[in-house]
């Protein structure tokens, strides 16, 4: 494997150290929530992975706009990297939410506005990856990806605000929520520390993975260009 840039190596190490610290803070430092027990500790990573997913999808929008205005393929590479990393983290967000819900709501899944909108968002971006693969022409693929990423992003704020707009069982921990929500709790200072450190940790982890994915995009482009050159 080719040598990685020094800053990427630093990010790799920092990610590992921060994840270990975040686990310590979430599992051992933060106090046990009285009504839910240990499962509440999933919250620290559940929100953090959702945050990284949203950042990934937002990056795809920014890259999409940049590609449509500049036409430079590097923006397409950044856009697809944002969507792919976002997809992995959005999947984790849905699955950890389901695991948290089982003992608190007494079910793995319920047709709640947040769960529905988050799943629709995941499906929209899975479709993005699948549809991209069906387009051979790199320019058409990049244009399609840019427009799709911009339009598809509508689902992300919709999912975020769903628990603030509609009546829902999903708790709103960071701001005041619906009285019908189950799983709401007040964060103590130690819980806040674990929460904000987890957010920072997953932001660093997300950025690291994104960089690795962009490197793959660049390599793939080089391979594709060499193949085209050989066929000509």
């Amino acid at each position, binding site marked *: *494997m*080719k040598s990685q840039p020094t800053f990427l190596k630093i990010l790799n190490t920092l990610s590992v150290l921060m994840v270990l610290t975040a*686990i310590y803070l979430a*599992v051992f430092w933060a106090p*046990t*929530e*009285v*009504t*839910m*027990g*240990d*499962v*509440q*500790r*999933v919250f620290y*990573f*559940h929100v953090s*992975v959702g945050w990284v997913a949203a950042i990934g999808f937002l990056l795809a929008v920014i890259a999409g706009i940049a590609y449509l205005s500049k036409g430079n393929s590097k923006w397409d590479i950044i856009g697809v990297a944002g969507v792919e990393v976002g997809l*992995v983290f959005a*999947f*984790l967000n849905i*699955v*950890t939410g389901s*695991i*948290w819900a*089982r*003992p608190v709501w007494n079910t793995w899944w319920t047709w709640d506005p947040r769960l529905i909108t988050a799943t629709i968002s995941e499906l929209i971006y899975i479709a993005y990856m699948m549809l991209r693969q069906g387009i051979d022409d790199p320019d058409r693929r990049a244009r399609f990806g840019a427009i799709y990423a911009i339009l598809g992003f509508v689902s992300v704020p919709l999912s975020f605000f769903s628990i603030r707009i509609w009546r829902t069982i999903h708790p709103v921990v960071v701001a005041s929520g619906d009285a019908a929500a189950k799983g709401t709790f007040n964060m103590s200072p130690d819980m806040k520390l674990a929460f904000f450190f987890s957010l920072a940790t997953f932001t660093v*982890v997300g950025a690291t*993975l994104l960089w*690795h*994915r962009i*490197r*793959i995009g660049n*390599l*793939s482009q*080089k*391979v594709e260009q*060499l*193949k085209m*050159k*050989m066929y000509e």
Partner: protein
Amino acid sequence: MNYLQILQETVTPDTTDFMLLGYGVIFVVMAIYMLSLFNRTKKLEQELVNLEEMD
């Protein structure tokens, strides 16, 4: 202890298994994704070397 106190007393449920499951899923999925990134990088680098030799 009167009845009101008994009703007010909150018993923290044992949900450790669910916590472990949640964290387990996060690390397994992330490990699989990192492995996928590593394998794709390695495969593309090899393909690039082969193509450059042929060119």
